[in-house]
């Protein structure tokens, strides 16, 4: 009985080592660079917490509502009006795609295909 348990140990060790690769590969890796927020602003169009959790849902709803229902304006919880536009509204303050969107998304391995078609502020400036 004990003999057979001992036999399993090396295989078990190899298995655990492989499974935990993501953890020890990242040991000592540099900490993720924090996204650069626009200076001199305290809040996005909704509260910071709300935007952190919901920005992707908001963008998804915005694109559906503006393209499919021709509803082009968003009224936030304070009653302020904003055009439902990634390029014209969001990127107007968050003026860098590389320093804002990309920093989080690339570190969590999410590819934003927004920029396959829409122009980033960097590209617009280069024009």
């Amino acid at each position: 009985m004990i003999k057979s348990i001992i036999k399993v140990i090396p295989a078990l060790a190899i298995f655990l080592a492989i499974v935990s690769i993501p953890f020890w590969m990242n040991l000592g890796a540099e900490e993720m660079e924090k996204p650069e927020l626009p200076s001199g602003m305290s809040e996005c169009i909704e509260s910071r917490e709300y935007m952190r959790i919901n920005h992707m849902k908001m963008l998804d709803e915005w694109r559906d509502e503006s393209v499919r229902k021709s509803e082009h304006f968003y009224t936030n919880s304070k009653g302020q009006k904003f055009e439902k536009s990634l390029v014209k509204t969001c990127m107007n303050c968050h003026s860098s795609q590389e320093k804002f969107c990309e920093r989080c998304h690339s570190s969590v391995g999410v590819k934003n295909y927004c920029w396959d078609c829409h122009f980033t502020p960097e590209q617009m400036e280069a024009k």
Partner: protein
Amino acid sequence: MKFNRGQFLKLTALSAAFGLGGKKAISLIAGNELRAAPGTSSAPAADPKKRWGMTIEMGKCKEGCNECITACHTTHNVPDHGNPKDEVKWIWKEKKSKIFGEQVHPYAEKNGDKPFLYMCLQCDEPPCTRVCPVNATFPREDGIVMMDFHRCIGCRFCMAACPYGCRSFNFRDPRPAIKELDTSYPTRSMGVVEKCNFCNERVDKGNLPACVETCPEKVLTFGDLNDENSEIREILRTRETIQPKTELGTKPSVFYIV
């Protein structure tokens, strides 16, 4: 660890009860609602009372003038791959025989197969929107046959369904093939169908489509077909107009004055 049959059954029953709680049980853990946007919605710009249409008076169109085409293709970042196989076009000149088929006869000689301006005819009964499996193309309330480029999966059913051949497919990445990028309008990506959308982005803001605005000869007239007092209705009342393939029941919103 001891885990007997009794405990197992209790745990199973408990999780089953939790599962039956449905969304309420989930929100007990997950907390906040999965819907964004607390207060949204404004009056939609696509007015169901309107029906946008266009007349094209080919007699006024000057040979060799391509200003409307250039204006459209530059404002919408339409790529030019330089070969007919990969061609993408929103508005272009097409031989009359290709549009009106049997109505072209040899006795008209030079005039018989004159190139006509051609674009998506914005049908009232569009076959393309009926076959789209993902609703990426759909009829707007104001008659514009719209493309939601975000949603297109590139199956090209719409291209097969369109009897007018007014849709193009991006076989290649369009960005490198655009001579002059207009960053105020997005490009498309590879594997997406595109066509003329009657300049929905301009019409929503109360402007005329780019081609209509640019034409120096006033060949194109754009307006509301439901408004009896509109310029376009006056033209349709007084002039003789024809439309291609009306026998199909597609009811195009573009009319030709020949």
